[in-house]
């Protein structure tokens, strides 16, 4: 059997592989070479590749993004990291006005092979400015690619294919995945747009990032209740591979759409809208969207408790779609009692 590795190790290995493969690849961001090394994802990389290629930076998100774009226009490749997605909002001028458009505006003369890792915070009081997911904002912009892994294996493959893609890629990395375990199955080609996580006939669940983890948990329980689901894990939010989604929903007629971001004008809305614009009869029941509320994230644990949906919400939605009662084992419910940390030995603060 294959050795298990953690998500943060998968990121680290992907970075190491890429830095080895392309000598013109550089990697920078606040903390990439500090003692905590971005939640261990950049561990030892400066030591191995030198401080010209792997380096810490001043607090200047907007310029640093432009610097990455300029470096890329010269034929280099860049990985830039923000420890929280929220910080990248300072750089949206460079991301939207330059990165997303230079290949187009120069009519193909200059590409921008820049991958921006945006780490999405959650829980333990990260609050309104340290936990935004805003995937729908990024995925709205033509010229950007937006991807999001959900486990060590797709993180590894997706990060490498993002880095070697010649376009600006927003790599949405959920902080709560860093400690997840899995096995690697190396298979790096172009960016993979989605993957089927489960095959079923009663219900389609479309999801991404940390919500796929919840979908998998829900699926275990649903299976025991004789409900079988198609689970589609969106690795790419721009572009989206709608064909495969259509195929599944044409089969099941029932859709639960999971979203890590606010629901108003979201990836979820896009998928639902696309499906019904394709075929007005595709839904046998009203599709259900499960997303963050249209509110900033509150800080305290009693407030985030209902803020972040989990597998229970998915199961409730399934009950509604299938008009069927589902039994959730008590053991599973116990799991979510402490809901604001990613694993039990997490003690904060980040």
């Amino acid at each position, binding site marked *: 059997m294959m050795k298990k590795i953690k998500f943060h190790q998968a990121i680290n290995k992907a970075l190491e592989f890429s830095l080895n493969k392309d000598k013109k690849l550089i990697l920078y961001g*606040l*903390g990439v070479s*500090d*003692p*905590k090394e971005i939640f261990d994802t950049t561990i030892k990389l400066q030591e191995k590749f030198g401080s010209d290629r792997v*380096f*810490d*930076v*001043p*607090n*200047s*998100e*907007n*310029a640093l993004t432009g610097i990455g774009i300029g470096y890329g226009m010269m034929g280099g490749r860049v990985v830039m990291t923000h420890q929280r997605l*929220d*910080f990248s909002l*300072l750089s949206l001028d460079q991301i939207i006005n330059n990165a997303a458009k230079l290949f187009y505006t120069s009519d193909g003369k200059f590409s921008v092979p820049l991958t921006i890792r945006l780490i999405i915070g959650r829980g*333990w*009081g*990260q*609050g*309104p*400015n*340290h936990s935004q997911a805003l995937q729908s904002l990024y995925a709205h912009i033509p010229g950007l690619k937006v991807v999001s892994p959900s486990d060590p294996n797709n993180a590894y493959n997706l990060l490498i294919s993002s880095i070697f893609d010649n376009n600006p890629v927003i790599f949405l990395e959920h902080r709560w995945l860093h400690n997840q375990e899995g096995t690697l199955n190396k298979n790096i080609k172009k960016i993979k747009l989605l993957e089927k996580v489960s095959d079923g006939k009663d219900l389609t669940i479309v999801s991404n990032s940390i919500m796929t983890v919840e979908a998998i948990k829900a699926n275990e329980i649903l299976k025991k209740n004789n409900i079988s689901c198609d689970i589609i894990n969106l690795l790419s939010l721009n572009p989206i591979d709608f064909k495969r989604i259509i195929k599944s929903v044409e089969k099941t007629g029932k859709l639960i759409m999971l979203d890590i971001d606010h629901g108003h004008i979201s990836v979820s809305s896009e998928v639902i809208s696309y499906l019904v614009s394709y075929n007005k009869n595709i839904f046998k029941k009203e599709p259900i969207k499960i997303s963050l*509320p*249209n*509110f*900033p994230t*509150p*800080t*305290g*644990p*009693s*407030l*985030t*408790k*209902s*803020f972040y949906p989990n597998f229970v919400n998915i199961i409730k939605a399934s009950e509604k779609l299938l008009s069927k009662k589902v039994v959730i084992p008590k053991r599973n419910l116990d799991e979510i009692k402490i809901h*604001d940390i990613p694993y039990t030995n997490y*003690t*904060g*603060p*980040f």
Partner: protein
Amino acid sequence: MVHSIDKMKKKQSLEIFKNLLKIRLTEEKISKEYAKQKMRCPVHLSIGQEAIAAPLKFLLSKKDIVVSGHRAHAHYIGKGCDIEKFIFELYLKEKGFARGKAGSMHLFDKKNGFYGSSPIVANAIPLGVGMGYFNKINKLNNVVLIFFGDGATEEGVFYESLNFAAVHSLKVIFICENNLYSVYSGLKFRQPKSRKIYKVSKSLRVSSIRADGNDIRHTTKTLLNTLNFVKRNSKPVFIEFSTFRFVEHCGPNEDDHLNYRKESEIKKWTKKDPLKKMYSFINARDKILLSKFKKKFNDRLNKIFLKAQKLSYPKSSVAYTNLYDEKN
């Protein structure tokens, strides 16, 4: 409110000393209690940097405004804000100043002139400038103090904000607490070696000075003189205080085992501990008064923390309130 150093009465300076102690004791208490995992939000403690904030309450009126960044506890306490509501908020309880919506990284106390702190580096700086503009055109003689770190001076918005304050001659004091680090990154990775931050702001045409941030006598005098200058001349001033943080960047513990700061550097600054420094020059009588105060204040803190733990959490429905202000 104190208006002149020379006229500053003994009693007033004692109050300032007490305020320094108050900040230290509160931060130490937070640090101690944090391990129990009941304050479930990131905290950026001010231990080591208290001398800059301690005089605030005595130099400012409630209408003088303070805004700050992620490391804001000292400024909040120093300004004389509500400590109970603050601790309750750290515990994310219903009785906290924002009913648990805010936590340590977003402090507010409107009544006492604390108009917010933001965990996005440098992003409260322009807010303070806008407040200064309000004071200006409404002919209010109040001052706005904006606190931030050395790292914040690398963000573009810092320069934009200084420029606006200079162009419009606002009564704003920019206070940079230069503790030499941004998280674990020393200045040398982030700014050219020969850079002097206060000289940059000077070149932007904001009157700028540098001062020792660890000696309560210097910080008090510097702040007081600056306040007088700003009010008299209706012009912004930039102060760079040199200082040092004694616990980890974020969290309750020390982190010197990580070796991102040289031992010699740490030693040097430990000697300059603002609390030690203060005790080195105050007289015996003040020492006695302070030790009495310490006991009393610690008792108060204990009560507050105990109460905080017992208080109830806000209902989850509170999360769905106050998105928009629909009063009108």
